[in-house]
């Protein structure tokens, strides 16, 4: 039981879900505006690399967060120009940017650090909630989570409110559902989409920053390992809402945590091979979507370039 729902597993779930949730939030905001951003993976990689680089060179973890975020935003800006202004195929552009990000970060990583890794890098601290120490389970789960884990949770709420309880969120959704209607009432579709794409890059980059500046303290080539794509799936799974995306990320994170905690466990004489344990998060996600979520409808204008008429 401890292995399935112990505080350790649930705490790990939160940690593993965090980078995915960041990417998924990025996905939610950009797709709600009508732009698919398959380059979340690349933005995340940018955040991871430039975050740790900044932490190492400036010695300041908060500054690292900022620079990592900016790096992701810059990459997303390329996507915005290509897909909003040039109306290029958003998927091809995204794939190209993923290749670009892998190339740039791997190149710089090798040029700057060679075969070594930076050491003594300041990392983002955990938020130690000592008053929870005595509380069983809860203390173990959230007593010592990193500030970025908390930031992710806060951002989920903020973005949920932003999207459904603010004027700007209303406009964002209108642009993603019916850009022409938005255009006819004077909402600048392009500008809205630009901001949304930029924000998605920044958010995904925070997921990358979490991986390096909060979680592990070093960068290795391609260390995001597809989390941007998982985030994309979590966004769809969560029906394009921030809270839904978080739930989806948590389910995936839980599967991931299980794949670690169940290592070495045998059921009777049957020992589950470790490689098969690693399939848990993926299968769990498919099962969860098939079982509970089912059909989900993307924003009506998602992925469709908008061209105001007559120009």
């Amino acid at each position, binding site marked *: 039981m401890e292995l399935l729902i112990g505080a*350790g597993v649930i705490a*790990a779930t939160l*940690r*593993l879900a965090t*980078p995915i949730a960041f990417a998924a939030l990025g996905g939610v905001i950009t797709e709600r505006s009508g732009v698919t951003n398959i380059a979340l993976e690349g933005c995340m990689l940018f955040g991871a690399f430039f975050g740790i680089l900044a932490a190492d060179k400036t010695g300041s973890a908060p500054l690292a967060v900022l620079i990592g975020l900016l790096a992701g935003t810059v990459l997303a800006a390329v996507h915005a120009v290509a897909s909003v202004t040039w109306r290029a195929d958003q998927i091809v552009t995204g794939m190209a940017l993923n290749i670009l990000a892998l190339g740039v970060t*791997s190149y710089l*990583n*090798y040029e700057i650090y*060679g*075969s*070594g*890794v930076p*050491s*003594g890098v300041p990392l983002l601290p955990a938020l130690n909630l000592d008053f929870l120490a005595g509380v069983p389970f809860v203390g173990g789960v959230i007593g010592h989570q990193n500030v970025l884990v908390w930031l992710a949770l806060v951002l989920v709420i903020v973005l949920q409110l932003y999207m459904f309880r603010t004027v700007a969120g209303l406009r964002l959704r209108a642009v993603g559902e019916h850009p022409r209607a938005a255009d006819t009432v004077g909402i600048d579709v392009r500008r809205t989409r630009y901001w949304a794409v930029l924000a998605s890059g920044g958010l995904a980059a925070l997921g990358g920053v979490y*991986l*390096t500046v909060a*979680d*592990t*303290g*070093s960068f*290795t*080539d*391609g*260390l995001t*390992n597809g989390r941007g794509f998982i985030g994309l799936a979590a966004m769809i799974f969560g029906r394009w809402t921030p809270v839904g995306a978080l739930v989806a990320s948590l389910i995936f994170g839980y599967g*991931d*945590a299980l794949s*670690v*905690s169940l*290592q*070495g*466990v045998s059921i009777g004489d049957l*020992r589950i091979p*470790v*490689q098969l*344990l*690693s399939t848990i998060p993926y299968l769990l996600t498919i099962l969860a979507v098939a079982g509970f979520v089912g059909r989900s409808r993307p924003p009506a204008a998602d992925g469709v370039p908008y061209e105001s008429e007559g120009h």
Partner: protein
Amino acid sequence: MKRLLALAFISVLMATNTACGNLGGLGGPSVKIGLVTDVGGLNDKGFNSLANQGRLDAAKDFGVETSVTESKKQEDYVPNLTNYAQQNYDLVVGVGFLMTNSIWKVAKQFPNIKFALIDGAPANDKGDTENLPNVANLFFKEQEPGYVVGVIAAMMAKDKVGKATHNTVCSMGGIPIPSVDRWIAGYQDAVKTISPTTTILHGYSNDFVDQAKGKEVGLNHISKGCDILFQVAGGSGLGYIAAAKEKGVYAIGVDADQSDVAPGTVITSALKRVNKAVYDTVKAVKDKAYKAGDNFFSATNDGIGIGKVDAVVPANIKTAADQALTDIKSGKIKPKTEIQVKG
């Protein structure tokens, strides 16, 4: 579509223009060395980057001309090796056990070119090892450095040195294959021999890249009382070390000396001197002392060893480790090659 056609056309035009008459610029040094990495690439924090280090050292010390090619897919091994062979490189080094068949194929076609393969021997199309007169198989006895760092871990745990208070040691591999497991086998052998009461944990990240996964395995092990963590998982292993650092326990590096990854956390490293293997092979080619077939790198020829030992490790333990290394050299200790504790 026109665009692609045009591009392809230009490409061909320019290619035919440049195909002849280049390469003439080479010449110069008489010995040329080519290194072909496996798909892990140069930044793998493991055998590829060490092999490359050996290449660069050799270039500097011997003035040989060198080149490196990173393989992006396993499909690339044969053409990448062939590219160097076609240009009459004097030595073509391949990295990794996944190249055993590729190097067999290419080496058979170029009997006059010398090859070397890190961690493997040429394997024919049936999958059977078939040594060739122009392929040097550079093998390492990973269980040996695994054993030596195991001695340090075992004694630290037994004596409850520093933060090692739970008499539990653990390890993490990238994937469960022999070349990874041999390290762990030696490590566990040492612990079982020296401190039978010490609890041993073991796990896998199932990955060589993903640091976060490695860290989770580490945190999981630490939560079970482990306070000395040994990893053989490339980039993923860095996450395992990060877990130790975050929780204030000890870690052991692998392949290269990883003491500067996390000073104070990494108490020592188990070394596999791939760089030396490459360096020595280049030297042998240059000195016309190249030897095809199995070349073992072990304690005997300093092909393996341990890295810098942190100050937290007491002198007696350090001495014991040195002694273990000596005993392995002399054959008095023969570390096991099979893992005993699987999880």
